[in-house]
């Protein structure tokens, strides 16, 4: 290379390298390799708990891995660099090809080579009693009928046609590559304008599609909360069905159905159902059934019998038989702030050690146990607290393991005294709750569109053969006529030989030669 290329020279050189087929190939392979670590190490985007666990288990290596963005592989600088380079290469490669292809689409097929017999597919025949023009016309019409583009070239005594077909192959290839760019752009924007939010609520409760109603909310970069269409979803009933007959699968869920009433503002309420594979599409958002659990209804009274707390509380499932963990916080109304934390067992059973567990996910013999804490719930400092966690740092344990008294224990309908004469707790009944995932992704339709366009382009470009064919005809000195047919494939073409033979056969038949 010339060291005196200058800046533009270097840029041009770099651009040529970047858009070369070899670079594209290396970048593709690099992308495949770069995707691997994200499947070996938990990712923040898909498995945040796994990441915390990893940090706990590998105190030394986790921070090092983190500094290489190993827990955010697919949004990392190095992964992004590879695919951005790849797509620049792709565009740089495809644009000139598009121009070239447009020119080819307008051009005539190229002149007939002088020596057809040297081409990879070749056939000839000789016929008497007909003119060269008639034989050539037989070839020309046969090619036309097979949708070849045909041009006539004569050289001396030899008259010929040159034909080409399969322009769609390159068109498909270009569509495929452009569609990939489309997918990338649509995916890139999709996250920006949309949002994803989660909300858990129990039977009888209603959810209103507004920012404050979500338990958690992840807006895209360009998301504007005024685009949230107002509607409500009321959970009428949640049904979980479990296998009861098949002895290999007792207790395995076979169906989850949430029956809901939805109402878009200004419209009539509607009955709907949401299932695991059947999301609800409402007002531009998609609502998914993400999880479910039990919400025991709990009432706390002061010593005089006045109700200071009554609500159904979502207990989060801990295992597949739905042993569930939940928290009740009673900041006001009692002598001290009260915190209850405990387990709910839909079908209780006692292990050897005396510990309870749930042996079946459905409600057959429900039992509730609660540990009791008093002290400071930490609600007054204005720090947001999860409703599912109890910060016991400033609290005293009154009932439970290692406490003065055993955990409170309830069957449905039972009332139990709180320690220290604080009051009573009643387990009134059990409702079910669902957690819904509410999404809006305005570009996902585009992603699908471009993906299908890519698939269509791929099919066309891989399976439509592109080839050139020639027929040249010469009149011999004895008055007979010799016709030569030849073909040349561009790209992979398993049917070329057959096509040349078929052309020859067709011409022979047209000029009245029988096949022997």
């Amino acid at each position: 290379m010339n060291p005196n290329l200058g800046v533009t020279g270097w840029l041009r050189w770099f651009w040529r390298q970047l858009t070369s087929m070899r670079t594209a190939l290396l970048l593709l392979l690099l992308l495949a390799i770069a995707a691997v670590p994200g499947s070996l190490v938990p990712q923040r985007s898909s498995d945040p708990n796994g990441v915390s666990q990893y940090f706990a288990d590998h105190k030394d290596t986790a921070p090092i891995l983190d500094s290489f963005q190993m827990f955010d592989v697919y949004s990392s600088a190095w992964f992004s660099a590879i695919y951005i380079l790849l797509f620049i290469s792709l565009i740089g490669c495809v644009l000139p090809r598009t121009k070239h292809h447009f020119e080819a689409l307008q051009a005539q097929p190229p002149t007939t080579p002088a020596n057809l017999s040297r081409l990879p597919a070749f056939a000839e025949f000789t016929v008497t009693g007909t003119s060269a023009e008639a034989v050539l016309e037989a070839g020309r019409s046969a090619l036309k009928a097979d949708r070849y583009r045909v041009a006539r070239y004569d050289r001396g005594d030899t008259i010929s046609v040159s034909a080409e077909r399969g322009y769609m192959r390159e068109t498909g290839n270009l569509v495929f590559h452009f569609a990939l760019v489309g997918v990338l752009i649509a995916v890139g924007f999709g996250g920006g304008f949309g949002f994803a939010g989660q909300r858990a609520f129990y039977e009888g409760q209603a959810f209103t599609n507004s920012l404050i109603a979500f338990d958690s909310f992840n807006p895209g970069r360009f998301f504007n909360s005024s685009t949230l269409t107002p509607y409500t979803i009321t959970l009428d009933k949640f049904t979980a069905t479990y296998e009861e007959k098949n002895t290999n699968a007792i207790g395995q869920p076979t169906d989850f159905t949430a029956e809901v009433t939805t109402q878009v503002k200004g419209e009539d309420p509607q009955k709907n159902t949401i299932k695991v594979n059947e999301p609800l599409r409402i007002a531009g958002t998609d609502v998914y059934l993400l999880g479910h659990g039990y919400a025991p209804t709990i009432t706390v009274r002061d010593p005089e019998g006045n109700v200071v707390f009554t609500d159904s509380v979502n207990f989060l499932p801990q295992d597949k038989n739905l042993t569930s963990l939940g928290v009740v916080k009673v900041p006001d109304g009692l002598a001290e702030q009260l915190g209850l934390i405990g387990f709910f067992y839909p079908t209780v059973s006692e292990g050897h050690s005396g510990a309870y567990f749930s042996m079946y996910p459905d409600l057959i013999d429900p039992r509730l146990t609660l540990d009791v804490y008093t002290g400071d719930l930490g609600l007054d400092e204005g720090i947001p607290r999860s409703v599912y966690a109890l910060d016991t740092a400033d609290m005293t344990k009154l009932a439970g393991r290692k406490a003065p008294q055993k955990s409170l224990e309830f069957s449905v309908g039972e009332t139990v005294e709180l320690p220290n004469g604080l009051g009573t707790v009643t387990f009134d009944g059990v409702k079910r709750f669902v957690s819904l995932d509410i999404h809006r992704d305005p570009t996902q339709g585009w992603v699908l569109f471009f993906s299908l366009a890519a698939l269509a382009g791929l099919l066309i470009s891989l399976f439509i053969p592109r080839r050139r064919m020639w027929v040249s005809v010469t009149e011999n000195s004895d008055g007979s006529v010799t016709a030569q047919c030849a073909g040349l494939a561009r790209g992979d073409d398993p049917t070329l030989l057959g096509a040349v033979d078929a052309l020859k056969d067709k011409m022979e038949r047209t000029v009245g030669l029988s096949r022997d």
Partner: protein
Amino acid sequence: MTDALSQYSVLALYSAMALYAIAFVLFTLDLARGASDDGAPVGESKDVTLAAPKRKLARIAMALTVLGWVLQLAATVMRGLAASRVPWANMYEFAMTGTLIIIGVFLIVNLKWDMKFLGSFVTGLVLLLLGLAATRYYVEIVPLPPALQSYWLVIHVFVATLATGFFALGFALSLMQLLQSRREAAAAAGAKTKLAFLTRLPDAAQLENYAYRLIIIGFVLWTFTLIAGAIWAEKAWGRYWGWDTKEVWTFIIWTIYAGYIHARSTRGWRGTRSAWLAMIGFAAVIFNFTVVNIFFKGLHAYSGL
């Protein structure tokens, strides 16, 4: 009734395996015979042409494979009937249906091109997978969990398995291609090799063409699998793509094969290097089916283990 059906299914599967095992031995003997028969020069013909009598072993092996396939089809159908759903919802069933399709693709391709020389590989691979599945991953029939109750299970998994069938043959052909080009190089240098059994096979260039044609079919099917999987994920989990481990590996496989297709038209990459890519691609497919299903955690935890 259900129990009886699933027991018949197991019985039929074991019988099919026995037939495949015999076929494997015969296919291998047929291959080995090539070593003592250095007559036909390589590349002389575009097709695998051999005097019919010499290939009696291969023909018997082929017949046994067809018979085994019919039995395995029966086994798979019975399993599906017993479960009242498609028979591909856990590792055991993936293996059963997947190998059924691999053999099926092999038989269909043989209608077009004579590929009996791949018989050893195909029956060997299928025996290995079925053996593993039957001994290590057998599970009784259980109903589908709600997440799998979707017609996308039927489409997505079936097409993925079909793609795997084509990739498997592509792998075998690429392996043969590598060995063949080594033998050709040795022959050109006048050296002796242990690869004489390849003499009767198509030449390396022809093997590469076969491999390419099968792999592009697999690639189109895999592209469809990727799209169908995203559509299903959107319905079931509320997002079409989330870099879940299984999604990652589906993407990796797709990218490797895209690389393979590019390699064919990149100077210096045609031939041996692209053959390696085809083989790495299939290794990733197998990895995705075994290690990822069993040991990696993710949303696709459906191995039934």
